[in-house]
């Protein structure tokens, strides 16, 4: 074994730290503090992506030929660590971690030239049109229809859980182009250049946290060009599966969890415990925080196994193991933070959470974000394949072993 850190990384770390300390505008910093989910406040986060792109750092996971920084996995880990320490808003994943890498693998040269630079620069935001009211975990049963007509497809049906569709200017989606054969056959993958096509209607959905993050999108005879198709007609399931393997984008999530634990430790030292003293001295809180930190440390170790190509990280069930661990740990972090905030988490503070509103939070920053973060995190074990489906996959892989 060998856990030595490359001394050259120290200089790289200093360079990263300097940029992250000096480049973000006040709005971007505010957006970071007000981030309560995977999808950070939209406008400020896209502005931050533009700044990062000017530095060449918008897409740490992209190959250099497409505009990635060409970092080693160790440099990537240093960047993630330094990023998380500063509470900066995470970049929105749909373009950078999903559509972009998928196009590199499967897109035509025209599609790559047209879309990749604008994904990188933050000019485009792509919403994901997969789920439907009748097709969630059983995604392949989707029924939103596209019928070929000349050079176009004509789409009828609806999509749901299209994150930030009301802010998006583009959409990637799965449509049904055939009802013959297995349900996985007959699905086609489409890129939509606009969100203002005639017949396309977006309805934001207010979530548990009070924010319209998710949307429903309705299609009535929406005519889109066939040139937006990725892969062959009726072969979209293959494309979707290829995209899935990029969904995490190789970013480590443990640094963010460690940061939240550090912030909780800090908050606990000034949060009064019932019956006197501070929460930091409460033995039940200490035990629960200790279990959480130990569990995050074990997850960070698993991320290291993946990063270094160890056999444990090459397990056939790795994507499911990783998805369950990261989502459930994120929820556990959010539960402890919510318990720590106590009644201070009960006031609904939508205006104070809005970037640039100028409305001060009633209490601390921790109290402001703890409850919406908890509520939003309930989604993590539902989206991207529910954890029940993931457990089925892990059990199946054990049966084959």
């Amino acid at each position: 074994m060998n856990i030595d850190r490359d001394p050259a990384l120290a200089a790289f770390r200093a360079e990263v730290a300097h940029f992250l300390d000096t480049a973000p505008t006040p709005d971007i910093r505010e957006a970071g503090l007000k981030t309560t989910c995977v999808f950070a406040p939209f406008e400020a986060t896209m502005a931050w992506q533009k700044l990062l792109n000017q530095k060449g750092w918008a897409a740490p996971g992209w190959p250099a030929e497409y505009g990635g920084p060409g970092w080693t996995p160790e440099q990537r880990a240093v960047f993630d660590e330094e990023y998380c320490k500063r509470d900066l808003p995470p970049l929105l994943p749909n373009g950078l971690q999903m559509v972009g890498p998928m196009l590199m693998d499967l897109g035509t040269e025209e599609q790559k030239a047209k879309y990749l630079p604008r994904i990188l620069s933050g000019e485009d935001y792509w919403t994901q049109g997969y789920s439907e009211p009748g097709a969630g975990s059983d995604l392949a049963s989707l029924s939103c229809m596209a019928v070929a007509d000349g050079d176009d497809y004509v789409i009828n049906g609806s999509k749901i859980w299209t994150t930030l569709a009301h802010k998006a200017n583009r959409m990637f989606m799965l449509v049904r182009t055939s009802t013959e054969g297995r349900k996985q056959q007959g699905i086609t993958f489409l890129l939509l250049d606009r969100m203002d096509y005639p017949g396309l209607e977006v309805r934001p959905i207010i979530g548990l946290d009070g924010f319209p993050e998710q949307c429903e999108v309705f299609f009535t005879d929406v005519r889109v060009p066939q040139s937006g198709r990725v892969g062959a007609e009726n072969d979209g399931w293959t494309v979707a599966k290829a995209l899935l393997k990029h969904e995490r984008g190789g970013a480590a999530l443990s640094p963010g969890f460690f940061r939240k634990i550090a912030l909780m430790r800090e908050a606990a030292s000034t949060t009064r415990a019932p019956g006197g003293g501070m929460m930091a001295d409460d033995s039940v809180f200490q035990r629960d925080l200790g279990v959480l930190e130990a569990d995050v440390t074990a997850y960070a170790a698993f991320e290291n196994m993946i990063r270094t190509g160890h056999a444990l990280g090459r397990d056939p069930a790795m994507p499911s193991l990783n998805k369950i661990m990261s989502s459930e740990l994120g929820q556990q972090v959010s539960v402890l933070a919510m318990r720590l905030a106590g009644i201070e988490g009960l006031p609904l503070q939508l205006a104070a959470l809005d970037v640039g509103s100028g409305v001060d939070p009633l209490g601390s920053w921790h109290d402001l974000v703890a409850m919406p973060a908890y509520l939003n995190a309930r989604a993590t074990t539902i989206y991207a394949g529910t954890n029940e489906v993931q457990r089925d996959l892990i059990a199946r892989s054990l049966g084959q072993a």
Partner: protein
Amino acid sequence: MDFSFTPEQDMLRESLARYLARHYTLDERRRIIAAQPGYSKAVWNQFAELGLLHLPLPEALGGLGGNPVDLVAVAELLGRHAVVEPWLASSVICAPVIARYAPDRLPGLLDGSATCAFAYEEGHGTADPADIAMRAEPRGEGGFVLDGEKRLVLGADTASTLLVAARLPDGKLGLFLIERTAPGQSLTSYTTIDGRRGATVRFDNVVVDPAALLDADAAATITALVQTAHLLLSAEAVGAMEALLELAATHAATRSQFGKPIAAFQAIAHRLADMKLAYVKARSLLLQTAALAEAGLASPRDTAMLKAQAGRLGRQLGESAVQVHGGLGMTDELAVGHLLKRVLFVDLAFGAGDHHFRIIGRPAADAMPA
């Protein structure tokens, strides 16, 4: 970064795994535990032949100079078979201390004719050497008198010497090497739930030579020994977890009820998935901590965190393995119960999980190791 075993470590593991699979069957293990002296001389001699007794010792003293990863590589396999021979207690914990302070006593430990036991625990899982209360008083004519009681002294009844942690008049911790035959010691010996030999050792006016005091300021040495115990007990637990997961998955795939394998029921399938998650977390943390230890970077907090996790995740996984086996899991006749008891031992010895977790969760300044 690289968390793989070296080709040499893999080779040693292959030899040991082959030997254990062949000679350390469940039936053989039960025979060993039921008979005197509670471990097998034949197995012990084979360990000597494989170099396991030399592995933890520096090359300058005739050892093989094994590093913490070498020891973890071995301990994981010993846990997989719930081995009861006192390799951890004698060869890993005690022998290096004897090598450093009393090398003349080493040959017996190396050829397998003698063992030594670590008398540390004083009750309720002495997690921190600072909690040691047993006293060693100097005598006017030289030497010391020891009074007090040590608990869960592994391998005490067959050991020729005891390595005893006791507090000196100046408040510092002393480390003594005491003959098992020295008058004033009384042993209450027993078999532990996981098949090892343990004992409560009472010391009533046990008189020892000045030379018995190996180290008059041994806090750092003892902390390092506890770290070693934490790391290797965790390795044993992870090895046991791997076996438990395999046994449960195989049983669920072959046991049929209501006309289909029970693995086809989602309630069982999800339990198996949770077991896999626990195993992957525990083993990842074990390998990372082993790599830190090899680089000299593992703090007492790191090793205590590992031990607490191995115990917590191991118990969860082990309880599930018993549940998946149904009534059969409740019997002494299957390995599953023996392996559950091995992880329970790890969970409770050298500081129970809740204690370690609470220390980890203390405010930052306190949580840092001394």
